């Protein structure tokens, strides 16, 4: 209910629309547009929690099929419980360093090759909820398309939002999305975006990924979005 307080204080917030309901409006718009089905949402939910089994810091991890997810009752239709993030206590910290300092601290720094942050109107009526224009713009400024994306860590608190973001970022089938489980596995809201950057950086620093993209969001239905491209150096 606290999140209702970030909506328009006069024309929307006094109605107390909760954050799941607001997200569900976006999910319905996705279904109506023909861009996705409830089964697609369930696939995201299933894969994310399965990926989270390998993430010791995840809050919610399990191995259930998309069919099992689809058999759940709606929480706020068309969203089911598994389409929604857990409520999480958590914190994250990232240390940044430049040039030689970074090289002196780690064998394979995760270099920030591009980072950008864009916002859209808060009023849902002013946006096409099935796309994320600000993510697309930020991705273009950050140079996501300048090279292959091995891994994407996307801050998509609701399953349908991953589909919107993947499209806005231009991700193809070669990109592994949310190997950590993403925000569906743990969503300490205002730090979940930083967690995405940290998760990606870990994979780049370990050599598991050569180049990847991390994303963070804020506001109702992906109002504001940050895109960060990280890249490792070949030895």
């Amino acid at each position, binding site marked *: 209910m*606290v*999140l209702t*307080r*970030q*909506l*328009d*204080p*006069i024309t929307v*917030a006094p109605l107390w629309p909760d954050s799941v309901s607001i997200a569900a409006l976006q999910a319905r718009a996705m279904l109506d547009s023909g861009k996705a089905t409830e089964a697609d949402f369930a696939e995201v939910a299933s894969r994310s929690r399965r990926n989270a089994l390998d993430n010791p810091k995840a809050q919610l991890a399990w191995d259930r099929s998309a069919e099992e997810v689809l058999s759940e009752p709606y929480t706020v239709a068309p969203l089911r419980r598994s389409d929604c993030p857990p409520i999480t206590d958590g914190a994250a910290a990232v240390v940044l360093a*430049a040039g030689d300092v970074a090289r002196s601290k780690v064998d394979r720094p995760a270099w920030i090759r591009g980072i*950008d*942050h*864009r*916002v*859209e*109107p*808060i*009023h849902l009526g*002013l946006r096409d909820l099935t796309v994320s*224009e*600000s993510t697309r*713009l930020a991705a273009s400024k950050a140079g996501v398309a300048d090279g292959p994306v091995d891994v994407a860590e996307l801050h998509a608190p609701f399953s349908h939002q991953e589909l919107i973001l993947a499209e806005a970022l231009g991700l193809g089938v070669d990109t592994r999305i949310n190997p950590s489980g993403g925000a569906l596995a743990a969503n300490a809201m205002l730090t979940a975006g930083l967690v995405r950057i940290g998760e990606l950086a870990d994979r780049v620093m370990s050599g598991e990924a050569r180049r990847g993209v991390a994303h963070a969001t*804020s*506001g*109702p239905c992906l*109002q*504001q979005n940050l895109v960060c491209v990280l890249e490792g150096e070949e030895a």
Partner: protein
Amino acid sequence: MGKERVAVVGIGQTKHQATRGDVSMAGLVREAAKRALDDAAMTWADIDAVVIGKAPDFFEGVMMPELFLSDALGCTGKPMFRVHTAGSVGGSTAIVAAQLVQAGIHERVLTVAFEKQSESEAMWALSLPIPFTPPLHAGAGGYFAPHVRSYIRRAKAPDHIGMLVALKDRQNGLKNPYAHLHEHDITFDSIKDSMMLWDPIRYAETCPSSDGACALVIGNESVADAAAADGRKPAWIKGTAMRSEPTLSAERDTVIPLAGALCAADVYRQAGITDPRRDVDCVEMYVPFSWFEPMWLENLGFAEPGEGWKLTESGVTALDGDLPVNMSGGVLCTNPIGASGMLRFAEAAMQVRGTAGEHQVDGARTAVGHAYGGGSQFFAMWVVGSDKP
């Protein structure tokens, strides 16, 4: 890494009042932003990014208000950031905006800070009933009054210093058309006779609660050069610094906070100031309770420890003094909390641009803007000058 030269090329503020009943929160913020754009001869489309500052969200009860204000500030499709460092936020916000230009990321950044205190009441928000804790804090005054008492004792300052500051700032405020308080009939005696709210702080020695906003347009060197060529003088930013310290530290000096002194030392080093008392022409500092003028004069190096009140008493800090302080009337005349720090930074810039009107200090070439926040735990300062660094 080299920094780009940057300057303030547009300044705007609202008429500040207890209640701006004529405008919405968004309308208030825009009033300042539009004036800054007009001053910079720019439109919304010219701006690359927007940096918004305000104090706690509880004050207006809108969580992350930057999200709903993004429409009002022409942010669609642009980078928009929010900064929050309690009462110093207006200063910190301007510094973040300046750094986006200094780093070469953007050419023109609009920065806006505001508070619409009439929508709620800050004193309530600052005195939340925290479980397990006695409800002793009667707002900010109850927190700061013991520190003021410590200062008075340590500096052996006479009682009337606080009243002198209040009188000076209120009289300066009469020259500032945007100021909230215009107390034409204020006298030393009326201050002395005002109610002792948080002994040793009298009512007339405290700041008002204001609705208001302030905005700056910060541009890179070519933007500033173009403004200068067009007859609109830029205020060159010669140094910016922020420091913080823990509120509850046994090592802490609440009268002369270390973070404030380090912040000042850093910003003077950047600006090439070796003797602030000599090298600075005027100072706009964050004085919400009158006694903070002598305290900050010491903290920022304009006076030795224990000597700050003597500058006040001898008239050095008067508008026609040797080191004018709070030419605009300061926080004591106008306090839209989130904007209060930026108003200090803006006044410093106006002074070196020569656009401060009736409260202009003749020939001001180097000015300091200062803000602090929280329990004196956040500090932000900048030095601006009329000459290109």
